[in-house]
């Protein structure tokens, strides 16, 4: 029967509770977010003015590389795994994750992976300096000695992600409450199911890529070494075969979060639920067949360029369906603009903007000019930051009252939102101009003609960093001094099983699965103890 959490540090080290592990993931990812943000601040401080002021170019390269690696693998991915751990069992009426011990393992190897990765910065020769895409031969023949530690760290991260996603798949497929059919699952669960399959399919490819690097560096093979008959371009194919699905791994759970939040604050069910599911699946499928649009300049035959160009443009169709559905959900809704909603609306606007610059980049002929310029940097920060990070922030504000039973400070949340929104655009909008004017990415210095916009961009970056500290303060203050809330349904427009359990969510939920009973126009759920019995209507299935 139910028992509370263990005492002391052992609770966190040995826990198999999905909520504890979700909390660990979320705090870890926030720590990594601050670390990756610090690296970004070093980059932007150096780029504040032309010429070398603060760091050496070699160290600058390590900063850009580590910023990318830490943000992608340390901040964004674990943050969404944390949300999955917390919310998926509660959303599908399961008592816990399917494989709780593996859950513990998949979290606790992560700190070691990043300790190894970050420790390379203090080694002789420095840390990884070859960009987060670690193209061979830069990452093999010309790599610093610490590259073996980098490879080992990537292996551990990959193992963690694979275990985490197997767990999520098993939970969703095997542990849904009776009556929770696939097409009744909340969209966050759907997007995570598809994301988890993407992870299981492509993380081994990343592991394969770094393994081949390891062999080339240490054991005399020539996968990527032209001297032995290999080909560096092969590396790019293998990497992007992983890398393109990876960008959807990052963004699909963000889609899921926004699809939960927008209906809540529009007080309408999500428009086009089933089309959302199919669009997500279509995006996931297409992500496997478009990888070479990252490498239009390697010298592909014209047929290849055309194929990858059109296939890439095709992704805009299911993505457009999703954007249409979010907007239509808001249309004629009874909108209110709490912090999570503000972040979600900003997500829709800015993500769509980033999607359009993505379409520009997909044009093979035009990409020759944009390739490896700040235009690309601006594009992927619009989809990664305004996409994944904004949605993660929205998710924390949305579910924080449910997690800890305290309401965050709305005013502070809104101030954070407006600073983040404005600062984000000050940072990244000018990078489009810089890129179109020809400023290459990953350089520690630049020509004088780029000076003004770089200064503007750096000022925006410092403001954006400050907004994150406000975020941290707001969350900590909520936990320590927040206004207690006790309504199970924290937001009156919220729908879903997670809003039927008590607030704050008890350590164990759904020890008895929720009961679905016929009644009204849609199915109704009843939750027996420990949460007070309460019924609510599931969102009617659209389409």
């Amino acid at each position: 029967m139910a028992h509370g959490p263990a005492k002391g540090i052992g609770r966190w080290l040995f826990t198999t509770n999905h909520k504890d592990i979700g909390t660990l993931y979320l705090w870890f990812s926030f720590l990594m977010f601050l670390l990756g943000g610090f690296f970004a601040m070093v980059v932007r401080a150096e780029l504040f003015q032309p010429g070398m002021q603060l760091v050496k170019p070699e160290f600058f390269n390590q900063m850009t590389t580590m910023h990318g690696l830490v943000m992608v693998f340390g901040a964004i991915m674990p943050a969404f795994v944390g949300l999955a751990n917390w919310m998926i069992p509660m959303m599908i009426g399961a008592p816990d994750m399917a494989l709780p011990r593996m859950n513990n393992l998949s979290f606790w190897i992560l700190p070691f992976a990043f300790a190894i990765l970050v420790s390379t910065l203090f080694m002789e020769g420095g840390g990884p300096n070859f960009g987060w895409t670690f193209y061979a031969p830069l990452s093999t023949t010309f790599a610093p000695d610490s590259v073996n530690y980098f490879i080992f760290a990537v292996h551990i991260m990959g193992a963690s992600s694979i275990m985490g996603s197997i767990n999520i798949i098993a939970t969703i497929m095997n542990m849904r409450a009776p009556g929770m059919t696939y097409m009744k699952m909340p969209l966050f669960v759907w997007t995570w199911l598809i994301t988890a399959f993407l992870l299981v399919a492509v993380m081994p490819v990343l592991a394969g890529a770094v393994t081949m690097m390891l062999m080339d560096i240490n054991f005399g093979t020539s996968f990527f070494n032209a001297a032995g008959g290999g080909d560096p371009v092969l590396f790019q194919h293998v990497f992007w075969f992983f890398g393109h699905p990876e960008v959807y791994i990052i963004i699909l759970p963000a889609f899921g979060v926004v699809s939960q939040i927008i209906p809540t604050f529009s007080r309408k069910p999500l428009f086009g639920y089933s089309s959302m599911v199919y669009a997500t699946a279509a995006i996931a499928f297409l992500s496997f067949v478009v990888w070479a649009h990252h490498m239009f300049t390697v010298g592909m035959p014209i047929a290849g360029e055309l194929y990858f160009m059109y296939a890439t443009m095709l992704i805009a169709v299911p993505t457009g369906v999703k954007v249409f559905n979010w907007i239509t959900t808001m249309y004629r809704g009874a909108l209110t603009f709490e912090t999570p909603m503000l972040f979600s609306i900003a997500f829709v606007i800015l993500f769509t903007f980033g999607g359009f610059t993505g379409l520009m980049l997909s044009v093979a002929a035009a990409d020759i000019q944009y390739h490896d310029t700040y235009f690309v940097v601006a594009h992927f920060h619009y989809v990664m930051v305004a996409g994944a990070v904004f949605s993660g922030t929205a998710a924390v504000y949305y579910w924080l009252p449910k997690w800890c039973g305290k309401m965050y400070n709305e005013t502070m949340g809104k101030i954070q939102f407006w600073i983040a929104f404005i600062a984000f655009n000050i940072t990244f909008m000018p990078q489009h101009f810089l890129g179109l004017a020809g400023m290459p990415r990953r350089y520690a210095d630049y020509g004088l003609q780029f000076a003004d916009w770089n200064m503007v961009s750096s000022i925006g970056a410092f403001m954006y960093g400050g907004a994150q500290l406000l975020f941290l303060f707001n969350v900590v203050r909520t936990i320590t001094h927040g206004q207690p809330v006790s309504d199970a349904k924290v937001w009156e427009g919220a729908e879903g099983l997670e809003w039927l359990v008590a607030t704050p969510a008890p350590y164990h939920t759904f020890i008895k699965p929720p009961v679905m009973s016929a009644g009204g126009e849609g199915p109704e759920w009843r939750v027996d103890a420990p949460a007070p019995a309460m019924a609510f209507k599931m969102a009617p299935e659209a389409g």
Partner: protein
Amino acid sequence: MSVSVRDRALLGKLSMLVVAMFAFAVFVMPPLYNLFCDILGIGGKTGGAYQAVDVEVDTSRSVEVQFVAMKNETMPWDFYPMETSVSVHPGELRSVIFYAHNRTGKDMVGQAIPNLVPFNVADYFHKTECFCFNNQPLASGEEADLELVFIVDPDLPTSINTLTLSYTLFDITDRSRPMLAQAQ
């Protein structure tokens, strides 16, 4: 806390997928990549030895073939083509000499890797003999005339008037020590 039968079955299937995808990346993708480059004649990789067939020499046009010789990183040899550019008629057999000289005090092995530009005409450039088919052991102070015999295919698209063949010479002494020891 035991794992249910359904979870175990799913765990097995997904683990198999993980292993399969890893194997795909390491064992399937590299050969597949080479196969694609080979079939499509892309990547600038020229083919192996070509059996010359009797073809009409197309004297109505001539194609300029340029030669570039590069040394990778620390390769200390002298290495250059005796002619940097020749004009040939398609179908004509032509020979070019590359000069290599190992000025160092140690025995070394070099390997030349060819690359052809434009990258998609590899199918129209045939080598009947090439030093690049084998590696080149040169003893200390030894010099060598390395021969390349080639034919430009008469089917070469008429839009192409210039081909550039580059060789990058790599020092593979370390990885061919066993072979070197055997030869002595």
